[in-house]
């Protein structure tokens, strides 16, 4: 009897919260779950007279183009390595920025730095590509014209030399996104109970000691959460970064081709929805598997911090 009343009151309390969540849930249902029925298109040979549902089944034929060429290896390797680098370096840089921001005691300065490092995140990739071009253009770019030339070093044709692009893309990526992710970590750090730091100070810990013994351990759940989310998208890439920023230069494909750009280039002229659906489905399945694996690994090492 007593238990029942408690249950009722609890469901009453959660009911109003549930109501608040309803719009979000409906959005999720329509936007994320309803389209999932569309995966069947990946296995269809679309014929407009027969319609989507009436078209013939084609097995895995729509997936073939993803694996057909030598490019399959290159684009998969690029996608994964870039994402791993982005996750790893991106997380470290973001945490460093967050700690710096937190240690700034001047309110005005904090706001100023926060806004200015957040700004690149708001800039469209198309514009970023022109900013990069302003640096790298072979005849008029800042690096060739003002730096290399005045140092007497031979100029580099940046858009024809693929070996530089892993660094260029990583730097561009960090410039654009590190500010944004650092805000998330900044919020976590701001949420850490001040008494930990006071206790550490009393024990005689300096700034660095405090960071390594208090801030970082307490930040761990946040880092794990963010990394797990990123791992799920490891087979996706920022299309703008890999397509716009290298100016779609063919000579750079060996280091700039990712699954997304390959699919776009291969299917742009073909308008084949079966093959597009196959590519999207493939990325999602691999992403799901990787999240499950990563979560399992986290669970084994540290059961409290696993996502599920």
């Amino acid at each position, binding site marked *: 009897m007593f238990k029942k009343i408690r249950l009722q009151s609890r469901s009453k309390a959660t009911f109003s919260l549930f109501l608040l969540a309803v719009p979000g849930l409906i959005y999720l249902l*329509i*936007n994320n779950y*309803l*389209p999932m*029925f*569309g995966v069947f*298109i990946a296995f269809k040979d*679309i*014929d*407009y*007279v*027969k319609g*989507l549902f009436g078209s013939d089944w084609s097995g895995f*034929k729509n997936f*073939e*183009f993803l694996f*057909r*060429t*030598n*490019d399959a290896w290159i684009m998969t390797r690029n996608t994964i390595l870039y994402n791993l680098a982005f996750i790893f370096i991106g997380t470290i840089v973001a945490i460093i920025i967050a700690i710096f921001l937190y240690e700034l005691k001047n309110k005005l300065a904090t706001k100023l730095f926060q806004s200015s490092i957040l700004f690149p995140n708001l800039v469209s990739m198309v514009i970023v590509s*022109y900013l990069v*071009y302003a640096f790298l*253009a*072979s*005849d008029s770019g800042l690096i060739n014209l003002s730096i290399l030339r005045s140092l007497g070093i031979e100029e580099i*044709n940046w*858009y*024809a030399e693929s070996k530089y692009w892993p660094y260029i893309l990583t730097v561009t990526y960090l410039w654009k996104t590190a500010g944004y992710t650092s805000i998330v970590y900044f919020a976590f750090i701001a949420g850490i109970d001040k008494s930990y730091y006071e206790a550490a100070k009393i024990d005689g810990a300096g700034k660095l000691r405090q960071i390594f013994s208090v801030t970082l351990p307490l930040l761990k759940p946040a880092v794990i959460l963010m990394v797990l989310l990123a791992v799920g998208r490891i087979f*996706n890439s920022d*299309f703008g970064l890999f397509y716009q920023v290298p*100016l*779609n*230069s*063919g*000579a750079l*494909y060996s280091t700039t081709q990712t699954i*997304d750009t*390959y*699919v*776009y*280039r*291969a*299917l*742009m*002229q*073909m*308008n*084949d*929805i079966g*093959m*597009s*659906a196959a*590519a*999207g489905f493939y990325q999602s399945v691999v992403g799901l598997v990787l999240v499950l694996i990563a979560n399992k690994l986290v669970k084994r090492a540290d059961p409290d911090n696993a996502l599920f």
Partner: protein
Amino acid sequence: MKKVKLLTSILLVLALLTLSACGSDGNGESTNGEKVEKVVFAYLSFNNIPEDLTDIEEAINKVTREKINVEVDLKIYGPAEYEQRVNLAMQTGEKMDLFTTYGGFSSYVSRNQLYALNDLLEQYGQDTLNILEQDFGSDILNATTMNGNIYGIPVNKGFALPTTFVYDADVLAELGFNADDIDSLEDLPAIFEAVKKNKPGVVPFGPINVNPSDTYLMGWLIDTLKIDTLTDQSGVGVVIGDSGKVVNLYENEEFMNAAKMMRDWSEKGYLQKDAATTTIPTSEMIASGSAFSFMGGYSGMEAGAQLSAQMGKNIGTKRITEEYFDTSSVNSVVWMMSSTTKVPEAAMKFLNLAFTDKFVLNTLLYGIEGRDYVVVDEHHVKFPDGKSAMDVPFTAQLSTGLLGSESLQYQLEGMNREDVELKLRENKETARSPYFGFIFDQDEVKTEMSAINNVKNQYLPGLITGALDPETTIPKFVKALKDAGADRVIKAKQEQLDQWLAQQ
């Protein structure tokens, strides 16, 4: 990714529409007892597209109601979204009766998206057949016939686009040359050298299109070697001359020589160092006085005047090849009817008027007389006083090459009418490939084609702008094409071509 997002929205709309789409086909009020049928007509405009098209529709409907008892529902999209909007409409079951394509004809056929027009043309399209015969020749519909079915009507215009050298005429005169000094590509280096020497800061030559960069070297090769691309712009699997043998163009020695010539030009500084990746088309550089010339395919002799107006410079043009017609020269812009249309007869009747009725065609292009344009003489119009293409309520004047029959269209004041006659004459006189009318069905090798497109994007822009060394790059390019399935594509093409030849 854009495609995947697009797909998501398609599915969503689909889910909502399948329930409600049935039953509504918009057949409305009746005049003179019969039902007026409604046809959706989608075309493409490079001008500003107004939100509200009812006044244009009404002007056209007044005529079409009376003539053919049909009303039209116009959809006008910009070039960037046209193909996607049409495909989206067809995928979601929205009404879309008549539409066009730029170069996508055969894939519409292989996806079974098109209505066969044979009987409809016979019954309701006699006027169209007549004007096509008159302006091009009766063989024009071969270019849109697959397996005996006529799946579309090519836009009826001047199709000959010989390779044309486009240059800043003032600079040429200043250097002491004139147009007669230019007859072929071999004549150009001497001029480029003079530009380089006397005009520092002016790039002698550049790509006509960027991203990907295209110097029109392939167009030039196609004209000079008389190459039939077999309706596939990949260049993998072409027939040179009348040999009947499908080969890979990139393995051909002439391609190597052409690429070497570009490499030579590039090394001598006739092209910008980053011509392969530049984002600025050469026309813009000419406009700002920092480049001298490019190559492209242009019809008629009036291209120079148009280009001069666009770039604000005195632009000269000189043809350096003769045109060679293969199927894709004619079937790149094709008018088609959806296979799911509910009103095929009405749609055919309207399409017939769009090709043959001067009023309907010019209203689609220029809008309403008096408000959007004023008539100058029988063949010419201009914008009302004080107005331009930018500020009239409606104009689709830049779509003249995509709609109806060029011979019935008004021209803007100042254009030479004789040019249209020249174009029509060239339509009849230009040599046709022996495989004119053959259309390659890509469906069985679409996996290979998608991979080949990628390889081509990777290597070709660098080769035709001289950025890459052909001696070392072409073998790599050919090998990558082979890995992508070039041999299978060539084999499939040869089989289809042999079959087609046997039927002729």
